[in-house]
């Protein structure tokens, strides 16, 4: 086995290589899981060492999409945490319904499972026709897959259960077609969704949103980066706008969290404080 700590040096060098060669900055990601992913990627790409991976990062630019996908692992599910989706449906949607046009930003959309979950809920609430959803991610590969909306059929059972538990009024199967061992989401559902590349580390305000979902993305970020992203969300939300995080995310260490007030704290749904001079429309 190599000398202790060698792998930490190699991970640091890899981060530098990605930054200087390709302009992607992973230096503010939580180190332990980043290291795991780097090790997995090293294996997947048949490199003997992380240093070997660095060489490929430097000299094989065509590998970049692979590498970004490997370092971000776009894992997701439809209606993950059904209680949260139920909370959206029952508590947040009635308030969003007062806007003539609803903008939703889903940051870190992975393969799109959550976008389609959201669309289905909006459709059933009769709000989808006046909604525009911006679904963004760092990884082009993930965005492409999100756009295609094709998933392994073995997920269908669990996702149907989640859908029912989140208060779905129909059958999830109404929204996809199954062929062989794949299921494809009804493409008509995509009509008000714009998929776009956006890097939470380096890009700026994206749109003026009434609701932002960013679930299980900041768990990979160190405190300063979490703080940056929260300020970005603050600047992107209308007053009284909603922010949804993953059910196990902590805000205690981010100073910019102060402007978000808990709306349904168990569900990690927050609201941008409504300042006196500007009331919710």
């Amino acid at each position: 086995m190599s000398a202790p700590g060698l792998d930490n040096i190699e991970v640091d060098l890899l981060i530098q290589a990605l930054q200087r060669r390709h302009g992607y900055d992973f230096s503010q990601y939580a180190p332990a899981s980043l290291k795991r992913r780097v090790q997995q990627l090293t294996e997947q790409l048949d490199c003997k060492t992380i240093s070997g991976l660095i060489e490929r990062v430097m000299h094989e630019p065509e590998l970049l999409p692979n590498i970004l996908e490997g370092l971000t692992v776009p894992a997701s599910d439809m209606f993950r945490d059904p209680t949260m989706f139920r909370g959206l449906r029952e508590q947040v949607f009635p308030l969003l319904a007062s806007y003539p046009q609803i903008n939703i930003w889903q940051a870190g959309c992975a393969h799109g499972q959550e976008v389609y979950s959201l669309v289905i809920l909006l459709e059933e609430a009769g709000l989808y026709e006046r909604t525009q959803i911006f679904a963004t991610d760092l990884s082009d590969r993930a965005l492409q897959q999100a756009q295609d909306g094709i998933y392994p059929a073995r997920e269908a059972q669990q996702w149907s259960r989640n859908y029912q538990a989140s208060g779905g009024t129909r059958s999830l199967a109404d929204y996809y077609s199954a062929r062989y061992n794949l299921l494809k989401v009804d493409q008509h559902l995509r009509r008000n969704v714009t998929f776009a590349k956006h890097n939470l580390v380096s890009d700026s305000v994206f749109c003026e949103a009434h609701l932002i979902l960013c679930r299980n993305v900041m768990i990979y970020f160190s405190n300063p980066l979490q703080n940056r992203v929260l300020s970005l969300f603050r600047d992107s939300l209308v007053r009284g706008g909603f922010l949804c995080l993953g059910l196990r995310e902590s805000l205690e260490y981010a100073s910019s969290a102060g402007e978000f007030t808990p709306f349904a704290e168990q569900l990690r749904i927050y609201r941008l404080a409504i300042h006196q001079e500007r009331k919710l429309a």
Partner: protein
Amino acid sequence: MNVPAAIAIGCSAGGVDALKAVIGGLQATLRQTVVVCCHSSSDTVGLLCEVLGRTSKLPVIEAAERHQAQPGVVQLAPTGYHLLVENDHHFSLSIDSRVNHSRPSIDVLFMSAADVWRSALIGVVLTGGNNDGAAGLRRIRQLGGLAIVQSPHGAVAATMPQAALDLAGADHCVPLDDIAPLINRLCMA
């Protein structure tokens, strides 16, 4: 090994009773950080914390992301997330794919804990029906930490402790009831 600073425990099938025995037997004066990964089919680990808390002399809580790992406290991985420990001893979570069909995975917790505590870590593998934890325990030993494995014979499910023995070996392979007293002894400075 150095005086241990932390104890990492992993289990799955039959794990609740095994944890009751181990956690319940830890002495009140224990100053080590205790982290636990228990596979379970329930929605939250909160109930397990409560159950263990009833018989434990140490507080038992769910590990929360960004919070410091606390000495003298038993901290359990939340259901559905991998639990990792960072170098400055705070917790982080990940929802990367399952490892050994498991999330949380014992291997993930053990490997990150091994990186942090190195030779000051005790790894414990209890009853379980798959081989999660074996690679993590090997890593703990490689970095100078100490391994305790429940003897497969008396275990509700022998697969997990046996897999750990086969891949990593153990410094102590003992029946369930001997594990807490052993940890208490090892942890006395």
